[in-house]
């Protein structure tokens, strides 16, 4: 007896209501953009400059006390967040204190950090500072540029690769799905105000990779079926292809999610935001490769007269001997 997540031989019609899915996605993307433009992202110090201090103490945390201790230093906007995690022991009370880079300072001030630590020690004598991170405004500006560059480069490189391996319509479909995934991820981060730092960029790029992975598998089957069913309508070919690969799509998503969820629950609070981005990306990426990429392909149409002779696996790797 095998575990089957998807029934055998599905013949679901994924394009019966194309407007519905495209509509939902568009609405979600607009919502994401609205949330982004109103609230903005909760940017970490990697991008804004500033300092975060992770403190640990055996005494229960009273945020107001911490705040009061720091008031005389006039740091501007200070955020103090208590962190809780499964892996903490009972006498492990953790907070993360964040403050901005001080005006007019290009570099990180060691004195200021020392003052902050001294102030906190007067309130909570047993406090320890397990991690201190400071980024100057100059570097943070560069990190933003680099991050945007990385995401753009990745999308462009992939566009070119798919264009070379398939047709330009496929490339556009894949990139539409990618943009969709990236926008929705940024939307979720701005809506839930989860800290957006450098690691999230890595997660975004992984989402790009994962979503593509999914899309390419579907497209690969589309290409094959286009050769196999030369007379069939494009919509039918797409439907067959998606149905045929559905079982694999779901299997892979589930194994990946299984791994990610265990990391989310057990991996500690330091990388939780990062893992959350990936979980979200896997879900959205799976959805978009079925509903967005293929829908765009359907709209654009595909050139059917393949110049290459028909051959069942017909691609340049078919002669690769394993």
């Amino acid at each position: 007896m095998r575990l089957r997540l998807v029934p055998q031989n599905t013949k679901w019609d994924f394009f019966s209501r194309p407007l519905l899915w495209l509509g939902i996605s568009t609405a979600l993307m607009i919502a994401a953009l609205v949330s982004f433009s109103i609230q903005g992202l909760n940017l970490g110090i990697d991008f804004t400059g500033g300092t975060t201090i992770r403190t640990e103490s055996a005494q229960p945390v009273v945020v107001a006390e911490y705040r009061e201790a720091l008031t005389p230093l006039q740091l501007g906007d200070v955020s103090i967040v208590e962190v809780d995690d499964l892996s903490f022991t009972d006498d492990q009370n953790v907070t993360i204190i964040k403050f901005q880079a001080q005006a007019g300072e290009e570099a990180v001030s060691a004195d200021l950090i020392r003052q902050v630590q001294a102030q906190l020690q007067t309130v909570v004598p047993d406090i320890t500072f397990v991690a201190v991170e400071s980024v100057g405004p100059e570097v943070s500006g560069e990190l933003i540029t680099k991050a945007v560059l990385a995401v753009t480069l990745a999308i462009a490189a992939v566009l070119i690769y798919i264009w070379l391996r398939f047709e330009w319509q496929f490339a556009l479909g894949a990139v539409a799905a990618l943009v969709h995934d990236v926008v929705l991820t940024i939307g979720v981060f701005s809506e839930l105000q989860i800290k957006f730092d450098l690691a999230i960029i890595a997660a975004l790029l992984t989402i790009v990779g994962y979503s593509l992975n999914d899309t390419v598998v579907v497209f690969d089957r589309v290409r094959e079926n286009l050769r196999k069913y030369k007379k069939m309508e494009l919509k039918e070919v797409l439907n067959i292809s998606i149905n045929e690969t559905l079982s694999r799509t779901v299997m892979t998503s589930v194994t990946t999610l299984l791994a990610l969820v265990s990391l989310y629950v057990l991996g500690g609070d330091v990388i939780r935001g990062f893992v959350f981005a990936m979980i979200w990306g896997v879900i959205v990426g799976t959805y978009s490769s079925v509903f967005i990429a293929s829908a765009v392909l359907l709209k654009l149409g595909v050139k059917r007269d393949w110049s290459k002779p028909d051959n069942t696996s017909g691609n340049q790797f078919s002669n690769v001997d394993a």
Partner: protein
Amino acid sequence: MLQIDGWKRVLILLTCVVGLFLALPNAFYPRVEAHNDAVADLEVGMSGNGLEELAAGWPSWMPSSLVNLGLDLRGGAHLLAEVQVSDVYKARMTATWPEVRDLLREERATIGTIRLQPGPDDELRVKISKPDAIQEAASIVRGLARPVVSLTGAGATDIQVSTEGDTIIVRLSEAERLATDQRTVQQALEIVRRRIDEVGTREPTIQRQGTDRILIQVPGIGSASELKDIIGTTAQLTFHPVVGRVGSADAPAGVGNQNLPSLDEEGVFYTVENAPVVTGEELVDAQPTFDQNGRPAVNFRFNPTGARKFGDYTAENIGSPFAIVLDGEVVSAPTIQSHIPGGSGIITGRFSVEETTNLAVLLRAGALPAELTFLEERTIGPELGQDSIEAGRIACIVAFVGVLVFMFLSYGTFGLFANIALIINVGMIFGLLSVIGATLTLPGIAGIVLTIGMAVDANVLVFERIREELKTSKGPARAIDLGYEKALSAILDANITTFITAVILFAVGSGPVRGFAITLGLGIMTSVFTAIFVTRLMVIIWFERRRPKTIEV
């Protein structure tokens, strides 16, 4: 059809065995680490303290490369410093002034008297009293120019002399600035390295980044501020003639002079000449010591040229004070009692024993050619790193077991093959990471977990394809064969696209992001290898043995 040549089988097996063999040291991390440290210590000639015993703790014929743990896992300090290269322009201009002065004075008859004018830090402005002779004066100054010593700057000279009315303006040429920047950063890097080595922490990473930055990573230390005290102090020691003593920094000092605060006495400033008599560069040794009153002090010795300059100066200026200046503060300003020929001296001030020890280290290692400012600072406590490793380990195991069980439930025997391949896969990732000396970071662990999830993808593609081919009832052998053949293009395309993003991440990213890109990239390679070759080999061997009439995937 369904077969792999004998030599290929051997090659595949060998690759797996080598990969796992290379990963093996990581399973005994503490022991191998102790072994490696002990071997390194023995090589530099240390002995005793049970070093031999530790070195014997791991057989020498076994591979001993380990996966480096990143700062976020091991704990430690990360600093990004910027070298203020323009500091050097100023120092160069200040040093040029006496030369220019002496040269122009000889021509007083034609160009009249000369006066130093205030101006930007990277310029030297000299006014002459006979403007008609300005071109002559400028050409005399141009005679000071020397060719630039660098590959790109060939043919250019180090200073540029221009005129503006009755003023001669001297500044460093563009080529010389580039060459100077290059030298300054290189020197700063070398000095930072020497200082950290003097303090003796293990395996520091000190790298140049971009044109004027230095990245410093020191694992295992709990606080960056200590490190910054050592690295960030310029330790520029200079000896200046003293012009006078004033009560505030704003008191008029006269051109070519400056007011420097006293280190010990609040509110006291010394007016000293800008150009130093001798600098710390000419020191050969510095040791902590005590002065005749038993106060902590630092004893120093000049090299022969420094000693001669110092000796000549003291011989000519008996009775006048001179200032010992450390990083822009006057440590002391004794009066010269007699000619000091030996070239050694003592710095006294209100120092603690610890401060004199540090100062001696800094003076020995050499002064930084320019000030360092810190752009980024990250300290991760070792406990937090340990917690992260622990959490990552548990998450990895749970993810692993979850995927294994799920694969077995979904694909039965074939799932089992995929599982064995997955275990080999993760082993090989660690083996490769160890061999290339890559650094494992927290996002890197996430990369591995993601690989665990995605590695089965290639197998899933194949198995699903075999299922489909079985439906058209071509017989199991043919179905398996076609399944591999037809799934190949999807596997390659899908993984190449992901690999592209990993490469871009590696190229553009930094620090932890890079660590993630490495594990992701390696994971893609090993998972494709295991899916295309290893699982297939297992399936084929199984098929050859059993020869089943029907198979269920």
